């Protein structure tokens, strides 16, 4: 028997696979396609204080082995989510992680406080890296001081462990990771999307109405693996890894790099059954590569001393 369980602050997971924020809504739609009880956890779509409409359309574009999105944090607002979305998810035996977004430290804190009135969430994913909103979002994700500030305030306001979701659009991911660890983060979630653009040759304009969007999918997997590997050497809090996961083999690659659990985003659009299919395939893949359990594999790609990677 291969043991798929893994434990992270606030999260006792029957397997390490969870849909990534923004790629699974609040679960209802996918519950029409498969039984959500199979999942290790669910990260729900970003919540802001008030409801937001988001950006103009088109909001998505396809790229080579990836996609761009600029949804712009559309969501019904935190109160609405608590009242109208979480009760549905509470029926499942699956830990829920709430993705918290905002345009100011105050908004992040208010959203976090709002969540304290529900027991339906087991952790918060603090989204300081959303590249698709005009105010807020990414500057928290690229400035270590701001990132630490928002982390410590949200941590104080939260009744559940806080995972800080890092942006890959930075010169030095290790500095960001250490800043939020020092500020009290219980874990990290990485990576969010790389900022990208596609230009439509006929209209001669950026295809997305928002011009830029977040690049996700297999195209970015090497960047995700590198950043997780690099950060794993520099922090001691656990990492939820993501970025281009399509298969159980990809999951193992993230575990070896140092992730303790894995989120699957874009792949859900390609194949709505991808999460249950990965969960089913994972035991035999672990076995094939000589592992008895998920926890066995975590960080096992670090056999050699850290020689400083690209920046030594």
């Amino acid at each position, binding site marked *: 028997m291969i043991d798929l369980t893994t434990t992270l602050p606030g999260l006792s997971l029957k397997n390490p696979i969870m849909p990534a924020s*923004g790629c699974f809504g609040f679960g209802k739609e996918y519950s029409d396609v498969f039984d959500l009880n199979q999942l290790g956890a669910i990260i729900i779509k970003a919540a802001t204080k008030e409801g937001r*409409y988001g950006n103009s359309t*088109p*909001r998505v574009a*396809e790229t080579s082995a990836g996609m761009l999105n600029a949804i712009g944090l*559309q969501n019904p607002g935190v109160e609405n989510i608590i009242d109208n979305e979480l009760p549905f998810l509470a029926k499942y035996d699956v830990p829920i992680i709430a993705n918290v977004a905002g345009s100011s430290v105050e908004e992040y804190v208010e959203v976090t406080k709002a969540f304290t009135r529900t027991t339906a969430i087991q952790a918060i994913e603090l989204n300081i890296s959303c590249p698709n909103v005009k105010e807020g979002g990414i500057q928290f994700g690229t400035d270590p001081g701001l990132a630490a500030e928002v982390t410590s305030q949200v941590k104080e306001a939260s009744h559940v462990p806080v995972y800080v979701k890092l942006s890959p659009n930075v010169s030095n991911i290790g500095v960001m990771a250490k800043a939020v660890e020092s500020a009290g983060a219980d874990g990290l979630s990485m990576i969010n999307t790389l900022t990208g653009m596609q230009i439509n040759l006929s209209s001669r304009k950026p295809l997305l109405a928002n011009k830029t969007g977040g690049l996700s999918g297999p195209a970015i997997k090497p960047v995700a693996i590198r950043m997780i590997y690099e950060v794993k050497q520099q922090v001691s809090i656990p990492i939820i890894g993501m970025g281009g996961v399509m298969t159980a083999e990809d999951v193992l690659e993230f575990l070896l790099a140092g992730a303790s659990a894995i989120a699957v985003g874009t792949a859900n659009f390609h*194949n*709505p059954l991808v999460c249950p299919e990965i969960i089913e395939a994972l035991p035999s893949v672990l076995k094939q590569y000589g592992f008895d359990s998920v926890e066995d594999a975590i960080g096992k790609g670090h056999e050699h001393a850290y020689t400083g990677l690209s920046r030594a």
Partner: protein
Amino acid sequence: MINKEWMTIVAKEQIAKDTIEMTLSGSAVIDTAEPGQFVHINVGTNNTNLLRRPISIADVNKKEQTITIIFKIIGTGTDQLSKYTVGQELDVLVPCGQGYPISKVTMKKALVIGGGIGVPPLYYLAKQLQQKGIEVTAVIGFQSEEHVFYESKFSEIGSCHVVTDDGSYGFKGYVTDVLDQVDIAYDYYFSCGPTGMLKAVSKKLEDKKGYISIEQRMGCGIGACYACVVPTSEPNGFKKICKDGPVFEAKEVVL
């Protein structure tokens, strides 16, 4: 309930320039397919075409358990789709979205207005309307003669007016020009086509009751990712095209 199915291609034919008609055979789910709904197709192998392609259901044959789709080759995904051959299988989400609510509205006469690749869903709609004893007039527009398809199929159902942008076949101009020139009686109109056309149609037919089917770039195709929203007439209101649509009452949405 949306199903992920492997459907077998049982027929494939080029019916106009760059336009392919494909018939897919599957299991019982297609019994519930309604006119205006679509299928979401995984056209790629590997990671080349990561996103599925939405294609309308153009016809359903419940006895044979088949659905027909008609698509135009406009990019890498539809090109890849056009390379599949009879006997191969396609990974399809079916059926997606909400179709034309024909069981909910009563009428005697209907007008269907289609443009280009917006024509296909109207064919199954027209067939269903005819079965209910409703008189159907069709106005269908294409770029030019070589792009015209299904004129004879619509003519079997009712009167059919073809219009081409360049006048190389039928009327010259846009579908709205036909509406100016021909006097058509109808209780409801049903339209599908490019957004520009839908705007023109719904503006011209402001005083009429009608339903339109909208296109937008999609991520999930099932309502989870918020890629395909359209604003509604209520302040801050919106609908998801893939789940709440693609068919909407013309006045419900803001194009």
